[in-house]
């Protein structure tokens, strides 16, 4: 550009999509990276499936971790904060990251405008993800809605660790019961319950879980996406002394820990305390987390 007098932005811009992503700290585990979009397709009326290129740092993402998206604008305005999205699948072979996201507002509707070859700025991998303890051999995964996206990479984790699982996918209707394919590939026992056929009722889900517990097939619980189902699992966890993990959400700014925007309440030893979803979580101990 010639003669850039009076410019508002005139140097390399540190803004949406700007290539501000040279490796600023080689030893740091997280990076601000400009990915390239490979696919961004609707998988049903509400969700899109995004596939982007990934660097070695982002390929180290663990199940339950998230990336912080600098979404393009869906309208004539601009977006000024990032949006957190948990990783749906890490494809280490083809060096790709996959996300499953629901289009709900400006950020996600902005992301929905991305086309193959577009650049997409994201920061990650962030936060504390799900983990397996060595003595967990058979676990129960229960999710609903957006939570199914967050739980999906547990399928990779159980496959890699030779853990069996019952996976209960709850959804309004069958086409919204996402991630089942990934868990089936991982050899899990997938049960889909829906509002359409009434199987998603808490009592039914409870009896499915109780059945697995009774058969000694519940070393740990994992959940995300529904307060009702979280409360159920927490209750059954207390009742049977089964440990569990839940992925929580909160509105975020920095995504890295400094700003204290993303706090949620936890109860630890009877005391209420605040933790940051972005760095203390998003995955928390199920017994310490509170319903929302």
């Amino acid at each position, binding site marked *: 550009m010639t003669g850039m007098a009076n410019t508002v932005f005139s140097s390399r811009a540190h803004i949406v999509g700007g290539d501000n992503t040279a490796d600023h700290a080689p030893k740091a585990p997280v990076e601000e990276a400009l990915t390239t979009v490979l696919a961004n397709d609707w998988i049903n009326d509400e969700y899109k499936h995004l596939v982007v290129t990934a660097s070695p740092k982002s390929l180290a993402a663990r199940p339950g971790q998230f990336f912080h998206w600098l979404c393009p604008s869906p309208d004539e305005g601009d977006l000024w904060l990032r949006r957190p999205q948990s990783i749906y699948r890490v494809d280490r072979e083809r060096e790709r990251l996959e996300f499953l996201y629901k289009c709900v507002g400006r950020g996600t509707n902005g992301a929905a405008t991305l086309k193959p070859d577009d650049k997409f700025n994201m920061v990650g991998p962030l936060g504390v993800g799900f983990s397996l303890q060595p003595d967990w051999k058979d676990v129960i995964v229960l999710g609903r809605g957006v939570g199914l996206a967050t739980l999906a990479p547990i399928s990779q984790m159980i496959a890699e660790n030779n853990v069996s699982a019952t996976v209960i996918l709850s959804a309004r209707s069958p086409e919204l019961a996402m991630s089942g394919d990934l868990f089936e590939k991982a050899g899990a026992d997938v049960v889909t319950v829906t509002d359409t056929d009434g199987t998603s009722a808490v009592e039914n889900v409870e009896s499915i879980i109780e059945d697995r517990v009774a058969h000694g097939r519940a070393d740990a619980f994992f959940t995300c996406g529904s307060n009702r189902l979280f409360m159920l699992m927490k209750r059954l966890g207390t009742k049977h002394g089964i440990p569990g993990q839940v992925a929580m959400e909160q509105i975020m*700014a920095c995504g890295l820990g*400094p700003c204290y925007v993303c706090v949620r309440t936890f109860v630890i030893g009877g005391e209420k305390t*605040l933790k940051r979803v972005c760095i203390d979580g998003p995955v928390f101990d199920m017994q310490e987390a509170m319903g929302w």
Partner: protein
Amino acid sequence: MVDLSVKIGDFEMANPVMPASGTFSPEMAQVIDINRLGATMTKTVSRELRDGNPPPRVAEVECGMINCIGLPGKGIDYFLTELMPEYLQFSPPLIVSVTSTTEADFAAMARDVTVPGVKALEINISCPTRDPNGGNFALHAEHTAETVRGVRAATDLPIFVKLSPNAGDVVGIARAAEEAGADALTVANTILSMRIDTHSFKPSLGFKTGGMSGPAVKPIIMRMVYQISKAVSIPIIGCGGIVKAEDVVEYMLAGASAVQIGYASFRNPTAMISIIGDLEEWCDRRGIARVSDLTGAVQDDMETDTYIAAAAGI
């Protein structure tokens, strides 16, 4: 190659860029090399544990954000024993931001954090997220002066006083801080703002109001830096809406000796590091030998006759 080093009184920095309090922690090492910053800065420390305000704690607005964090923290003892060592892992000089609700305790806080490793204090008398009336002591010259006097008596560390842009007479308050012994002025904290969600009809923030930061506030704070730099002789640290190297240059031209960056790190965690690099390039391109030469270098001897100015070329 430009010399990027600057001094804020006796406080020396390898470059003029430091984080703004509350937008930085050692956790930033997850993504940037903290040792490249001009200084490090703690989240504001209070005497006791503070929970902070009810969420939602952030609202996105045109050209920035509003926050109502409310100065949460585990108190000064936890800070000194648990957090300080984290900050001291890094080489840039450490500034500790402190606040209090009484003038006496402000002085006591200053004394308590005057410990080895701490290179300067920032006195946060201006946080609008604790008091919705817009920012504590920094709204009044007398309160500012008394607070700073107490702190001055309590420590030999350089004292940076963080002013409030919500004050009507920010220049008068700046003068009061200078007279009371401030070594530098941080201009400024966030601007008390509000957003209402037209879908839910609710305030977007749990605390209803909060402090705005980001590019929207830059022209307002720029004016304050300019006005204050004409009125005081202590150094100024510009803070508000910086997202690129030119913004640093603009603040320095207006009179700042160094700058703080907050919002930009949320949008781009690598922003501070990029800006330092861009600033170096910018100076080299312009042939500027020392970045500190930019401080106050605005050419403001403007034509005051309207008819003459309106006959000039564009």
